[in-house]
């Protein structure tokens, strides 16, 4: 876990460093592996098929807007589908096509038991929480996205979650 955390934080450092404002004005942006290119590589290496659970009244909608989530997922090459009911969610999970479920913290807790035995990772989204709720969420959830946050940051969380479902892909 420590290694993973280090790797993820290193990647984040790399992404942020690669995207440092103006520095790349002097260097070669085209050949840099930073920014969208690295994010696409990350998504290609750890491809996510995301079920976005957005029931009526959920704060996830606002979070997704703050994160520019759908546009970002599409740009980097992840697949996604939005579902609004528990039944729809179950049916989609049964298809076996999805490896990630994204839900607001308030709904995620209810989903956890149903997902536990599957090879689907649950990512909780923290948005509009009190300080206490935010602190609790940080301790409860292995994969947590805070909204708003930088795309580089939550895409790394998604990749990390994908890796947890399959292990690192390796050449046969």
């Amino acid at each position, binding site marked *: 876990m420590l290694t993973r955390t280090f790797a993820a934080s290193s990647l984040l450092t790399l992404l942020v460093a690669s995207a440092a404002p103006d520095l790349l004005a002097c260097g070669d942006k085209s050949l840099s592996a930073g920014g969208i*290119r690295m994010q696409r*590589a990350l998504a290609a290496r750890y491809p996510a098929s995301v079920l976005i659970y957005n029931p009526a009244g959920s704060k996830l909608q606002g979070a997704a807007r703050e994160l520019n989530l759908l546009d970002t997922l599409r740009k980097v090459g992840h697949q996604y589908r939005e579902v609004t009911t528990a039944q729809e969610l179950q049916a989609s999970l049964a298809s076996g096509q999805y490896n990630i479920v994204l839900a607001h913290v308030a709904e995620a807790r209810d989903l956890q038991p149903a997902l536990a035995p599957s090879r689907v990772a649950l990512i909780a989204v923290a948005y509009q929480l009190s300080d206490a709720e935010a602190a609790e969420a940080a301790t409860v959830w292995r994969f947590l996205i805070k909204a708003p946050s930088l795309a580089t940051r939550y895409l790394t969380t998604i990749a990390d979650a994908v890796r947890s479902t399959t292990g690192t892909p390796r050449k046969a």
Partner: protein
Amino acid sequence: MDPDQLLARGVRLGGYEIVEPLGAGGMGAVYRAYDPRLNRLVALKVLNPGAVGGGAPLRRLEQEARAASALNHPGIVTIHDTGESEGRFYIVMELVEGTTLRQFLRRGPRPLRKALHIATQLAAALAKAHEAGVVHRDLKPENVMVTPDEHVKIVDFGLAKLTDRSTLFKSEQDSATESGQGVIRGTVGYMAPEQVRGEPADARADQFAFGAILYELLSGSRAFQRSTSVETLSMILNEDPPEDTVITALPPSLRWLLNRCLAKDARDRYASTRDLALDLVALRDHSAELLRVDKRRVVNNPLAWATAGIFAAALVATGYLAARTVSPGASAEAGAPRFKQVTFGRGHVVSARFAPDGKTILYSASWGGAPVQSYETRLTGPESRPLGPAGSSVASISSKGELALILGCRLDWANCVGTLAQMPQDGDVPREIMEDVLSADWSPEGQTLAAIRTANGLYQLDYPPGTTLYKTASKLGYLRFSPRGDRIAFLEYEEISAEQGVLKVIDLQGRVQSVGSGWAQIRDIAWTADGTEIWVSAGDRARIASIYAVSMSGMRRLVFDVPGALFLQDLSRDGRALVAHGLARGNMVWSNRAEQRDLTWLDWSTVADLSRDGKRILFYEWGEAVSANPVVYLRTLDDADAVRLGDGRALALSPNGRLALALQESPQPHLVLLPTGAGVSRELSAQGLADIYWARWFPDGERLLIVGEDADRTPGSYVQRIETGALEPIAEKGLLAVLVAPDGRSVLVNDPLEGYIIWPLDNTPPRALQSLPPEYRPIQWSEDGRFLYVRDSESSTVQILRFDIATGRTALVKQLKPADPAGVVGIADGRGELAMTPDGETYLFTYWTFLRNLYLVEGLSP
């Protein structure tokens, strides 16, 4: 030429079929001809027997013609072929439909805008040729073609240099003479004085001819013309062109440029034709403003004319705002902006503000590579005194004299990020307010600060401290209060790494309005005293910035422009401006155990690769010298000129050094092989790749490692066989290969989460290099395959480490740094930009400098 000597229609010459004569002169005749092999029409120049010597001179002429042809510029006629048939030497050229500039000029003087349109094209083509070491030496309107859509193309490039007979270049109406000492080459009326004297002529002779042509374009009459050739030659040596009313009414900056081209002493002309071309582009792009400014301010005012002329001359001449000497004796009433240099250090000014008294200036700068320091200076003298602690930068000063400083300034290009603090102007102990601040400003009454800072990876605008008015994942910067304090202007960038941004205004209730965008880069903000306009530094091209004014309704106007980049720092209530003028450069340094050499070629030299012996250097230029269009060069360690290989970003030299691999972006990203010696370039099919990130050679020289995106925009690594073009994916999607093993049997790939993996190409299991930190950037594989040379990208200096693949141990082998730290803002930041030989002995790196000083500007119109 006797018409009877012209070749008849249908006559074949070396595989080309004469269609009709296009013109004839002392050197021979030009025909429209048909090339049946390629089914195209060409221009065939047939030289008179004896116009050029046989044997070696002929071969040299052929070589020179080919060299000129290789210039590959839209403003230079392409030479397809040369040959000799039945004792006639001929040159096969691109057929240009249109007229000669001579015929074009017969229509009379051209309007300023149109004349500059022609002249800028001509200058750009000349600059391109001169950078490649090719000089025309007989530039004249007869040697310039103008197409129906008024594009110009220069013909006969390079022919004058190696021909032995001046007659080759005599036209019907002009004749050259020979002196007893040296042979005169060129056409009377356009020859430079040194040519008239029979002295060696270089690119500056072409500048003189260009000046004569420009004079003629603008005035409609020749700059140098007398009744006989001898008198004309005497005029060139001893007299200025006639005082033409059109010329004297030109904007002073254009007159000055003209005078500089026509200087009698070549040393007084441009050192670089590229500078001439750039100045001309600036004048063309702002010709309307120039004329407007001149009419408004200086009509019927000889002193103003003189002032403006000298001022513009200084700008164009040096690229600096050396304006304290610009208008000696001129008064403020003259109307032209006046500049006074405020700082004189080697490094860059980070920020500057007027103190409330209007006479004191507070600024921060990094001089000589030292950390940023704040200073106070007065306009009465050049001395400055340090202000506040070391590492602090001036963000703002209140109307009550309270300073806002950014402490612990971390320089990001030339901007500071650090801890916001406040301190009395005469104090010495700042009080910290908040961290990670990029920009701050006092409200007009001087009570409260607004600030832009980062928190949790986001950018936010806080006012008052503790209250966030605006938050976004996009980068924010450059915040300034309106004079009434009811609004705050700031910049929001579309991407964190982008320089394109939107000028926004937010009121104190958090309502945001976009008022300006569309520039390639934008930075720096200041409100005019009446609050009706916001001035910004902005430009349509990276690295070039001018000052624009933007109204609340989004209307924009150019306030001021000079060659180079202007950075607005502050506006005073009485309309004076503090402006930093910058000069950015990409520098290239070669280093081995014994020595370090600066091998910078033009203004934006960027390292690509080193030959195995460390003596040949592949690089590219992509700065103003090449109009930001990347060009591949090869140079050696001696003083020889760099050789231009072709367009694109250089990537790598082939193992045998005979080919350079380059990336061309247009129309779609693709690779191209450029010969480093004789040969022709070859484009490689991208085989469906939508984007190419980088590429390297395999050791066999027959395959390429390519990293890019497929049609689905999925990044991956590929091997392309050069002979067949076949492209095969290697490794798995999302794994980006960075190096090829010296035996060519495996590659080093990067897993975005897991780090580096040695990935065999023969289906044996991959090997993760777990002890190689992901933030290290591999540069080279050692010759014996045992080590990887890597760069620690988290270090502020360039540290080269040797990583032992077997043991996982690393050892520091080299530290690289520029000899002169002044103005250094980055060292080998991007991929490439740092190369080394496999034996770890020789290194090559790029570093970036940014030098800018501060000026006080008076007379800019609010």
